[in-house]
């Protein structure tokens, strides 16, 4: 099996597993956060079906991450119906996962979410060699998985929204 196909299958598996109905206890704890390698995360970005993807790397203890989260979620909600796929990656340490799940629940997250599970440098460079590793970091991809926009630090909401619209428009232009 070729690598790209294997990654897509892995991403689809993660997505399916993440969308499984949650029980009451699970709902109280918040959405499931699954450990994922950078390859699995990029496979989720590039899995077919999205017209654009916004990927946000965050952590519960990160002040600008918490500050920007409502803006990111507002943009996700506004454009999800037009084909925007959100992908959240928590950079929390393992023992902070319960707090991360609570945070996601409080912000109404109902889509697949991941936990960085690899060496930092491998993770950072896989997402973008231009990323220093500072949190938060936000990436917007078009339907082909090409990076349209990258920002490290608290993302300006208008800038992010423009990037999302640009990615969606570029996809529409190719059809």
């Amino acid at each position, binding site marked *: 099996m070729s690598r790209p196909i294997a990654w897509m299958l892995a991403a689809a598996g993660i997505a399916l597993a993440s969308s499984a109905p949650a029980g009451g206890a699970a709902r109280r704890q918040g959405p499931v956060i699954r450990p994922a390698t950078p390859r699995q995360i990029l496979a989720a970005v590039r899995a077919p079906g999205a017209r654009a993807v916004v990927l946000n790397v965050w952590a519960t203890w*990160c002040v600008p991450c918490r500050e920007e989260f409502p803006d990111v979620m507002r943009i996700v909600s506004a454009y999800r119906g037009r084909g925007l796929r959100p992908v959240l990656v928590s950079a929390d340490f393992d023992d902070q996962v319960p707090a991360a799940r609570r945070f996601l629940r409080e912000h109404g997250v109902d889509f697949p979410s991941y936990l960085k599970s690899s060496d*930092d*440098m491998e993770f950072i460079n896989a997402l973008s060699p231009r990323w*220093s590793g500072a*949190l938060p970091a936000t990436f917007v991809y078009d339907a082909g998985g090409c*990076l349209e926009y*990258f920002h490290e630090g608290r993302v300006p909401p208008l800038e992010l929204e423009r990037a999302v619209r640009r990615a969606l428009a570029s996809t529409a232009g190719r059809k």
Partner: protein
Amino acid sequence: MQLRALDRWVFGFWTALAVMGGVPARAQEAPPGLALGDPAPMTDVKMKNVDGREVSIADVQGTKGTLVIFSCNACPWAKAWEKRIVALGNSWQKKGVGVVVVNSNDPGRVAEDDYATMQKHAKERGMSYPYVVDATSDVARAFGAAHTPEAFLFGADGKLAYHGTIDDNAKEPGKVKTRYLEDALKAVAAGREVAVKETKALGCGIKFRPKA
């Protein structure tokens, strides 16, 4: 460092896009970081040390090199590496490498990054090197430092010889495989070329003070 085929492709792909201007990336506030071989900027700027004295990077310059680390009190990554940073700083200062740790964070954003907590950390952890306040965050801006902790090691010739992280496992010291900064310190002190000159790790973005 060997890159696997996919990594080479990914790196080449993004680099090509960046060169073509296809990735409208925005840095947070800091300009692009120092390049290897660059001298340290703003070395004469006096910064308030935890002992109350004003200290500049030039003041701490060592005969075998100078280590400048941007760090803070509150960041979980800085906390995770703090004991190792203190051990390295205290040890290499005695071996002729000048050491200074700089806190550029605005305590108005994170209260725990204030001066009093710096003093407490320095005392409790036994720091024997200066832990100073970058009161305008301009030193971090000049270095292009983006997050904490972030290390810049200059050789005896004053040129940047290593830039990056402490080692390859912040959370679990017992599982560290490569001690990037320590390896670089050994090389610099011996006058050898550093093998791995640039590394990365996740970290807390520096909370820059507003520009004056």
